[in-house]
């Protein structure tokens, strides 16, 4: 690689003076310099002058020390010109144009970084990641966003796959569960969904939305149950509760919750039995803790106590949390069957209808018996119909022949 050494001599700086003192070098041997770059400061008369070098390349030698006085025309600095084409190109690219006919020319180098952004850096919103979604207007896009509708999930009905206003509106109204016409009705009373009402609404919505539930039911001859309850001197609910607990010990799959985050069925060891009570404040579900440890008498007493508290409106959060299964005696409303809503995040709910006289077949003969309908709603993720049916059949058998419960004690 050959290199041309270019010698720059101290120029006539226009002062009519013949020499100058070197005050300080701005570059060192080995540095790259460009045309017109200031390389040295010299002093002439009473002023310090910065001297630019007319060459591009690498500094090969500085011909005067700081403090030295050199004459005009004497060597000042030697610059080795870049000789390889690539190096020359790089130098030229970096060097800029130098002075042009009309001004300073281009500058060397380019700053290719961004200074700190003014304000927050906007990040594209998730939905506009589907920036290809065509929407009829910004107004409609905003309508979707304001209503929590993912514009990318809206089925467009406009030509060219354009999402129209009515497409977004229909998604919104479906989510709301009522036709816009009803929601916009003027001839109506409006009750805010808040407080207990709001909490219940939220709970049941969540339950139905998250739990893939199924319901199975059976009609049961409850004559034996009624006799047993008289003998024991407790309420119907207490006996059914005791049967329920026994059933859950037999079929622990129904005493669980599904952990969707970790993708696991969590089988609870203890049974905290919740039961529905209709109070002035609405439906409440107090919980009998560790029901599996209680005798029937203790169970009955606890049910009583909690019912009292519920009626008085004195139930605290500690009474209403931690349930693993719920029992709902909606028969007190005078109805037979239902599709109960599981008390989220439990996996099952046993509902009992009214106990009434009904024609029944006993030993092949028509008789009038006390009949009731039991409904079991279960989370189909935790078990299949076999288990659910098994549990319900067990409960039904115990209701019909309470003595069989003795096997479980």
């Amino acid at each position: 690689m050959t290199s041309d050494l270019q010698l720059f001599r101290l120029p006539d700086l226009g002062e009519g003076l013949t020499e100058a003192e070197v005050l300080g070098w701005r570059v060192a041997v080995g540095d790259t310099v460009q045309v017109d770059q200031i390389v040295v400061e010299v002093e002439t008369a009473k002023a310090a002058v910065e001297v630019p070098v007319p060459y591009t390349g690498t500094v090969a030698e500085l011909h005067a020390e700081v403090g030295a006085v050199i004459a005009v025309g004497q060597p000042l600095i030697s610059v080795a010109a870049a000789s390889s084409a690539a190096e020359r190109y790089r130098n030229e690219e970096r060097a800029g144009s130098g002075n042009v006919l009309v001004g300073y020319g281009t500058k060397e180098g380019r700053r290719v970084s961004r200074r700190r952004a003014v304000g927050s850096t906007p990040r594209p919103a998730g939905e506009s990641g589907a920036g290809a979604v065509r929407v009829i207007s910004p107004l409609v896009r905003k309508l979707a966003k304001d209503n929590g509708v993912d514009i990318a999930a809206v089925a467009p009905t406009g030509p060219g796959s354009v999402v129209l206003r009515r497409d977004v509106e229909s998604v919104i109204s479906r989510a709301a569960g009522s036709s816009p016409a009803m929601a916009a009705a003027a001839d109506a009373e409006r009750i805010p969904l808040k407080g207990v009402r709001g909490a219940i609404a939220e709970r049941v919505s969540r339950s139905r939305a998250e739990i893939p539930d199924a319901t199975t039911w059976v009609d049961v001859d409850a004559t034996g149950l009624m006799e047993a309850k008289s003998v024991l001197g407790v309420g119907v609910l207490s006996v059914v509760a005791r049967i329920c607990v026994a059933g859950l010990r037999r079929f622990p799959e129904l005493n669980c919750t599904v952990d969707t985050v970790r993708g696991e069925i969590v089988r609870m060891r203890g049974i905290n039995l919740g039961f529905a009570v209709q109070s002035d404040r609405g439906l409440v579900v107090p919980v009998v803790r560790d029901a599996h440890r209680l005798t029937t008498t203790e169970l009955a007493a606890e049910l009583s106590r909690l019912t009292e508290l519920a009626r008085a409106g004195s139930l605290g959060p500690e009474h209403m949390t931690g349930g693993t299964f719920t029992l709902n005696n909606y028969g007190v409303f005078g109805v037979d069957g239902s599709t109960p809503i599981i008390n989220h995040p439990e996996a099952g709910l046993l509902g009992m209808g009214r106990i009434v006289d009904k024609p029944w077949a006993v030993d092949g003969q028509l008789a009038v018996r006390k009949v009731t309908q039991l409904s079991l709603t279960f989370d189909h993720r935790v078990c299949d119909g076999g288990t659910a049916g098994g549990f319900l059949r067990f409960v039904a058998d115990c209701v019909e022949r309470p003595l069989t419960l003795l096997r479980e004690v």
Partner: protein
Amino acid sequence: MTATSMAQALCAALGDAMRSDDRVLVFGEDVGRLGGVFRVTDGLTAQFGDQRCFDTPLAEAGIVGYAVGLAMGGFLPVVEMQFDAFAYPAFEQITSHVAKIRNRTRGRLSAPMVIRVPYGGGIGGVEHHCDSSEAYYTHTPGLKVVTPATAGDAYCLLRAAVADPDPVVFLEPKKLYWSKEDIDLAWDGEPLGRAMVRRTGKDATLIGYGPSVPVALDAAELAAADGIDLEVVDLRSLVPFDDETVTASVRKTGRCVVVQEAAGFSGFGAEVAARVQERCFHSLAAPVIRVAGFDIPFPPPMLEHSHLPGVDRILDAVDRLQFADEPDLRYLSGVRP
């Protein structure tokens, strides 16, 4: 109230300006003895003498450059460029000096003057007599650019332009020179910079200026018969631009059509549409549509009417404003309209 044409209103404005300010000089080609090819300077030489209203040699750069010198010397030149395209020789003087002298000298010198330019088509004029050159001037910082659409506005905008400390390019829609209004000409001292709502409406905003305003108003009247209520905004002042009035209107209606005679590509309407889109985006129920002349040199008189936007082209654009929750198909790829 008398029936006054725009040309007469302009003439009255010049006379009143010259009367109220001795510094005002009116000059150009044929403005003196002839009174102007459109009679806009009719009678001024007789009234004020040939030192104040006079003819110049046939040299547009000369007229404007000479005016710059006179302005430097404390006078207030109101010059005429005989037709829009004939102002082009003066383009350098206008853009390099008239527009810049205040800025160049940091305010120590300025060029308070008015350059009157008859512009626009619709008079069956032959080549070079029908251009709309406003975009060249609106794109030059330092110039103000105004254009009246009515005789009343011709009077007060010209008075305001003469009184303005900045240079003003005053574009006169020649096809409206003969349009008459029953009006008392008056100027309340209001400076340049305000647009005006000519017709209120709620369904969409038509924005126009100069010769496009009457066409827009005609279109609005026809649309009303179809049950569409159009608002018409007359910009009046292209620079300074009245963002407030325009934004308020489009935010109200949610839809906008911009009308201009000039070729659409890179025209002033593009600036209007961009501003509307930027400031009113969240209120828009439809794209902002421009209705303009085609991107061709101004056609011969016999084809002028195919070129200039008429009520049909404007109303076709209004139809594309997605009123029925149906997207405008024109630019939707993969869909044949």
